């Protein structure tokens, strides 16, 4: 007999978030605290206390908890505990998706398709700020997310910008980045590719300067030394 399938729409993947730049014990403590806070938020929700759930999910979402980001997107979509806000919903759903949580795919697609181009780009600009901050904190997966943002959220897509971000992601050895970069640049002319490579080279130096020591790859140019006289 065929077992009854209860299918949520979404599948779990593991994430390497900004916490990866922390010492292991600190990262574990933070993760444990986040799970307690997440459970408390879900308990609020089950008790019909949507406003409290939104507040808790929001704190977690800002700190990169992808399940909280998806749930926050759902609550913003439904206008539960907070006024309905499709821009905020789209931002959070895509933030989760771009950082690797495939559970957000259906919702983020539906939300983005329902927005006019100008609003999509408002969301894209906000996401770019979020993701650049993550990248600066050492969460290199954000480089890949920035590439996908320019290709999948920006309307019309900025494929050259996407290519530069994907080249950076590949340089910082983000999983899947080389495959995505190669697929994107396969369709561009040599001249455009050379232009992207030049921009990526300059951006690599800039980003190396923004990174602090533990997260800084050995391939980064040596920091400029102050000299006397």
């Amino acid at each position: 007999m065929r077992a009854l399938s209860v299918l949520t729409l979404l599948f779990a993947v593991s994430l390497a978030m900004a916490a990866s730049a922390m010492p292991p014990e600190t990262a574990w403590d933070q993760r444990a605290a986040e799970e307690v806070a997440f459970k408390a938020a879900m308990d609020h929700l089950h008790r019909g206390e949507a406003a409290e759930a939104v507040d808790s999910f929001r704190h977690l979402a800002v700190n990169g908890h992808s399940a909280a980001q998806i749930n926050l997107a759902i609550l913003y979509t439904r206008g539960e505990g907070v006024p309905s806000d499709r821009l905020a919903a789209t931002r959070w759903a895509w933030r989760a998706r771009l950082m690797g949580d495939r559970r957000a795919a259906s919702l983020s697609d539906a939300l983005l398709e329902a927005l006019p181009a100008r609003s999509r780009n408002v969301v894209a600009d906000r996401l770019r700020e979020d993701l650049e901050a993550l990248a600066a904190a050492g969460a290199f997966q954000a480089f890949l997310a920035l590439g996908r943002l320019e290709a999948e959220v920006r309307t019309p897509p900025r494929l050259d910008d996407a290519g530069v971000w994907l080249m950076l992601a590949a340089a910082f050895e983000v999983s899947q980045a080389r495959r995505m970069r190669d697929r994107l640049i396969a369709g561009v002319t040599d001249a455009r590719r050379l232009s992207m490579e030049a921009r990526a080279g300059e951006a690599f130096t800039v980003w190396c300067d923004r990174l602090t020591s533990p997260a800084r790859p050995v391939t980064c140019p040596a920091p400029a030394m102050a000299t006397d006289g």
Partner: protein
Amino acid sequence: MLDEMTSSQDWEQGRGATADGVAWGLVAAPTCLEDLERVERHLPEILGRALARSWIDAGFSKALQRDPKRLLQAYGVTLPRSVELRIEGREGARPRIVVSEVGRGFRPRRLMYLQLVMVAGR
């Protein structure tokens, strides 16, 4: 907003569009799920997309509530005659799509049900 842009009648006739007026689809190409194996493999993703759309689009939600199988047909998804779709939950609430196999000689057998739910954890 989109609610005003595309009515439930438009959706029922496969004329739904995105906010930019681009034709919206459930699948990239006409898809015939001719047996239960294909239904179980492909229908969850298709219905997931439909459910997500129904959350943000009143016209689509009405069309889905009225006749989900017909709506899928209008968007190029053909299901076997023996497969029935039913929406549970009142309009405006979080809908649940129940997929059943019906046939002579046995009661409808539930194959799966789908609902957009809160994510329970990492």
